[in-house]
């Protein structure tokens, strides 16, 4: 299955939702763009969680282009698509591998965002690319988190470094990197306990974990991934800001995009924090991870609306 299909599969619900809702707005031969129409449009766009500013900008765009005119569904959707692509524009953001020695990926996020599953997916992807992977079970806080990652490590057949219960996560991270260097592992993925971005002590702990990794490899971690639950609303902005402050995140993995949630908050994050989305999680299986492309994200979002066949990619 191509990445585009995966994305589309994940966003299917989103598309269907927009499709019916938007089609309701239009009569067969177009519709007059007036205030009631614009209000209805706002309602639809807000459902995606893209946030106040983005919605208002898109509404503004449609209003300036078409106010007082009768237009077709396609014309309006094209404007949405263009404006949203503009708002979402980001450079390609694949994983940056170390030139030599192991690449260290640190994974963080709030409680329940889907960190552990994302780590499993990353490990699966890297392994299928022919790389050797090691997991560091840095979540020593949540009950049974280490067990959960250990189960994944045996399912995927990748080694894992764990610490004693209640061991300091920094020491686990340190040993995981140490082990990766010693055994010549390509990629070391370090898990961290979920924490709310407002918990100062825990955020400081995150910085400490990063420092511990740097003691082994000064250039590491090469990637710091923030895992964001696609159902998250505007709080995602605060998460992006505060996690970036603590550990200088390099990108986002948007998890759980297979529900009805649209993950639109990444639009607001892109605008306000500038953090790019690297991958999206579209299912519960290890292979359900796809690289993120803003154009395709937007296209998949609106293709269903206009009924265009997806471009194969």
């Amino acid at each position, binding site marked *: 299955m191509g990445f585009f299909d995966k994305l589309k599969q994940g966003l299917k*619900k989103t598309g269907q939702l927009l499709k019916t809702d938007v089609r309701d707005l239009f009569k067969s031969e177009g519709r007059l763009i007036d205030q009631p129409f614009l209000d209805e449009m*706002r*309602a639809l766009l*807000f*459902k*995606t*969680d893209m*946030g*106040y500013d983005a919605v208002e900008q898109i509404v503004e765009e449609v209003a300036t282009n078409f106010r007082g005119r009768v237009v077709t569904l396609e014309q309006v959707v094209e404007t949405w698509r263009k404006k949203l692509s503009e708002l979402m524009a980001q450079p390609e953001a694949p994983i940056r591998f170390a030139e030599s020695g192991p690449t260290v990926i640190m994974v963080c996020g*709030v*409680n*329940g*965002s*889907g960190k552990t599953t994302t780590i499993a997916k990353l490990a699966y992807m890297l392994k299928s690319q022919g790389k050797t992977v090691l997991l560091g079970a840095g979540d020593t*806080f*949540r*009950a*049974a*988190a280490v*067990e*959960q990652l250990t*189960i*994944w490590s045996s399912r995927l057949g990748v080694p894992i470094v764990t610490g004693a219960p209640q061991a300091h996560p920094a020491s686990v991270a340190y040993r995981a990197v140490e082990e990766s260097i010693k055994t010549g592992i390509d990629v070391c993925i370090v898990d961290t306990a979920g924490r*709310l*971005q*407002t*918990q*100062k002590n825990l955020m400081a702990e995150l910085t400490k974990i990063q420092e511990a990794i740097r003691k082994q490899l000064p250039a590491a971690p090469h990637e710091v991934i923030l895992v964001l*639950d696609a*159902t*998250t*609303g*505007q*709080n*995602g902005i*605060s998460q992006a800001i505060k996690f970036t402050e603590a550990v200088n995140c390099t990108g986002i993995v948007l998890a*759980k995009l*297979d*529900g*009805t*949630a*649209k993950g*639109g*908050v990444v639009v607001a994050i892109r605008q306000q924090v500038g953090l790019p989305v690297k991958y999206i999680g579209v299912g*519960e299986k290890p292979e359900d991870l796809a690289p993120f492309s803003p154009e395709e994200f937007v296209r998949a979002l609106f293709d269903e609306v206009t009924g265009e066949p997806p471009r194969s990619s």
Partner: protein
Amino acid sequence: MFEALQDGLGSALKTLRGQGKLTESNMRDGLKLVERSLLEADVSFPVVREFMSRVSEQAVGEKVLKALNPSQQVVGIVYQELVNLMGPVDHSLHLRGPNDMTVLMMCGLQGSGKTTTTGKLGRMLKQRGRRPLLVACDLQRPAAIDQLHVLGEQLEIPVFSDRTNKDPVAVANAAVREARKQTIDTVILDTAGRLHIDEELMAQLERIDRQIGPQQVYLVVDSMTGQDAVNSAKVFNERLELDGVIMTKLDGDARGGAALSVKQVTGVPIKFIGTGEHLDALEEFHPDRMAGRILGQGDLLTLVEKAQQEFDQDEMARQEERLRKGEFTLDDFRKQLSQIGRLGPLQKVMGLIPGMSALTDMMGDVDHEKDMKRLLGIIDSMTPAERRSPSKTIDQSRRRRIATGAGVEPREVADLVRQFDAMAQMMTSLAGKGMRERMKMMRELQSGMMQNPDGLAKKKGSTGKRLTPKEKAKLKKEREKEMRRRKREQKRGGDGDGTEE
């Protein structure tokens, strides 16, 4: 909690307050701001729209415009609507009598905090004298069973699980049978979480619901959820007929708009809120308090309730007495500080005091806990005499000694003494005054701090430039002038209050 929503509404309402006279047009501007902050707080769009239309209808009416203090009325309307939206409450778990078994079923999306909440609920029941059993029906997530067992061990509550069985309905059935054999009176089922579109899971939950017939079904909702919160709540409610909602992760800066939307869309009461990772962080949900908090009025009742649990009542009475007599020493201050420390994270406590939420934001990056420890350290390094009247006894050499003892800069000791003086003055005048007066003084103190944001918790910074005697004199003059002005205003304000009533 709800801080961000509170901030947004706070500034929106300030705009309304700032207007001398409320007209229809500036009220619309203000209401537009209210709308924006609700949307930014993730309140679902249709709910916002309905809320706004109800509020505007009432606010733009003639009655308000002619009223004596229209802006307050608008605040009142917004507040009342928020309360209406989130209420009425029902905190009861509807447990059956001790001889009859009650089954509670927990459900929710992945990562919403079901398992942790199950543990918290178990702890609460145990504290109330019930004998709960936690049942691991989440057979999807790797290690979910382990997680529940670890929680059970921590809480000393029995946990039922069956690792060989792949059918959660059978596990739940076996658990209930087991519970009847033992002296269990409440069974809590921790079910698997998935995305609600997953038909298989919803069918599984329905099967559990039908076969076990739980007395109560609770939905656990992550307070950080965006517009999707209403969709999932709706589906769960349609399939399982929910009896209550528990909002989690409200200790973060989640705006918590989901609380409003979920209640509005499902009509199911919000019972509890999770306010921390620790297992005792489960509180009853109060819409009136929450609405007050959202509006920046502080949550005095919650604080009082919390304080009553933790404060030493006798000690409070003694302090009150001393305050009345106009005695307030660093010893008292120290006691208060450590009592506040016992209440929980300072920022959380401060947010509950009216007018203080803006203050906590101002102190934003300062680490309160650390500052408090430093303050305690300084006070502990003083002699009893110094603590009784610090400003009179502490000279330069004493200051240096105290600073060495506490491991701080002498300047910080001086800062503490200065702040204590200001505070003592306020505390003694607070004593014997009514609530209204107290709130007013609190506000004044706050605005005073606005001008000097470094106020209470000063961190090391530049010492600034040294002033010439001439500049000093000028500053002093200005200060005196300001003081006179304030006194006048206070007097006038007091009179004003009289005529208003």
